């Protein structure tokens, strides 16, 4: 049977992708941001940790979804997805290959479990999805695993609540565990941490709040499930709301987890970069 073997969170700042694509990861500005991923790159390359499939939770930044269509939860079910042209040409990264059988299975299972998923086939994937892949896998000719895109609306209000996201994670876990193929599946939550990309408050960073969020992602997700949107906005900036997506990852891991690795760095462009690797305890 398929099983959830680990959860990873990571920022998906577009400038990180540009640094990888332009070969700037070792310059003074970027070196400390990338150094925190060395551990994970080594860990994930080991056969016992390497996922067969990653369910990659991210938000589309007005690339596949414009103002005509705003799905709260959309799961990519096609066989493959091309990198999006976000205004400066597509990133030079591999095509994203899906595990379509598992994606369709998760879609069906979650809908039956009362999560009204949007199923999407034709979709280009933007930096929200491709930057975490670059951080974890570098620059291979092909991504080393299958990837199921799960896009969450965190742009047009209201986004889903943290509790809804956590519960969707639980439903995804049930779906994965009822899939007959023997697969190691990871769930990644991306975006965050504190950042604000607008107005006179732009550049807001709340390291204390971010660190407590990381602590509780491991130890007290019940507190995070109850956190209202307004707290994310006040404490972590208007774009800090992306952190609700991390709770999908956390919900999929079950009650108790072990924290394997953590990295926190200010600043990557406008953003506090947060990264954590968790594995289920049972």
């Amino acid at each position, binding site marked *: 049977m398929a099983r959830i073997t680990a959860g990873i969170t990571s920022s998906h700042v577009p400038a990180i992708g540009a640094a990888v694509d332009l070969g700037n990861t070792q310059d003074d500005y970027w070196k400390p941001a990338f150094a925190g991923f060395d551990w994970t790159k080594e860990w994930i390359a080991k056969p016992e940790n390497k996922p067969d499939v990653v369910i990659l939770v991210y938000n589309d930044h007005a690339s596949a979804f414009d*103002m005509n269509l705003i799905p709260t939860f959309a799961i990519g079910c096609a066989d493959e997805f091309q990198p999006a042209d976000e*205004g400066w040409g597509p990133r030079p990264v591999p095509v994203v290959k899906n595990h379509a059988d598992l994606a369709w299975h998760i879609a069906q299972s979650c809908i039956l479990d009362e999560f009204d998923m949007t199923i999407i086939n034709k979709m280009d994937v933007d930096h929200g999805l491709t930057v975490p892949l670059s951080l974890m896998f570098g620059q291979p000719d092909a991504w080393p695993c299958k990837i199921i895109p799960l896009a969450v609306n965190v742009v047009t209000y209201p986004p889903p609540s943290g509790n809804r996201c956590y519960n969707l994670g639980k439903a995804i876990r049930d779906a994965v565990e009822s899939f007959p193929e023997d697969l190691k599946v990871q769930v990644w939550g991306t975006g965050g941490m504190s950042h604000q990309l607008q*107005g006179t408050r732009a550049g*807001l*960073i709340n390291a204390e709040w971010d660190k407590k969020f990381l602590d509780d992602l491991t130890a007290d997700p019940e507190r995070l499930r109850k956190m209202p949107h307004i707290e994310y906005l006040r404490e972590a900036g208007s774009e800090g709301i992306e952190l609700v997506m991390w709770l999908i990852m956390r919900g999929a891991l079950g009650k108790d987890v072990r924290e394997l690795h953590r990295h926190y760095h200010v600043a990557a462009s*406008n953003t*506090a970069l947060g990264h954590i690797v968790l594995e289920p305890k049972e």
Partner: protein
Amino acid sequence: MKQNIHEYLAEFDDIPGTRVYTTARARKGYWVNQFAMSLMKDENRKRWLADEKAYLDEWPNMTQEQKDALLARDYDKLLDLGGNIYFLAKVFSTDGKSYLQAVSTMTGMSVEEYRNMMLSGGRSPEGLRSKKKGY
């Protein structure tokens, strides 16, 4: 856990220097944002850069105020007029500008000053969480 939608939305106006992208803003900015999406195609970027005013003429549903703000790259004004930063990113990316460069223009700081603030830990949330409570 059910929240009252009116109270939910009203709280957003209490955050200093922030325009949350509510449905009211999304409706107001629909054509600005759809215009921005058109710049995801290289042929459109070329036509836009060659003659911005002529390209804007193809968008009759946009207000003149929105068009003027686009021509001026006044991102702060565009947010007031219903633009969203992820859509507007197509405009500044077409100009070869990064998020950091575009975002800094809304802060009253130079790009260099803003970049240095970010490198030294970013903007503190102290006093910027709530207008009413001032914390």
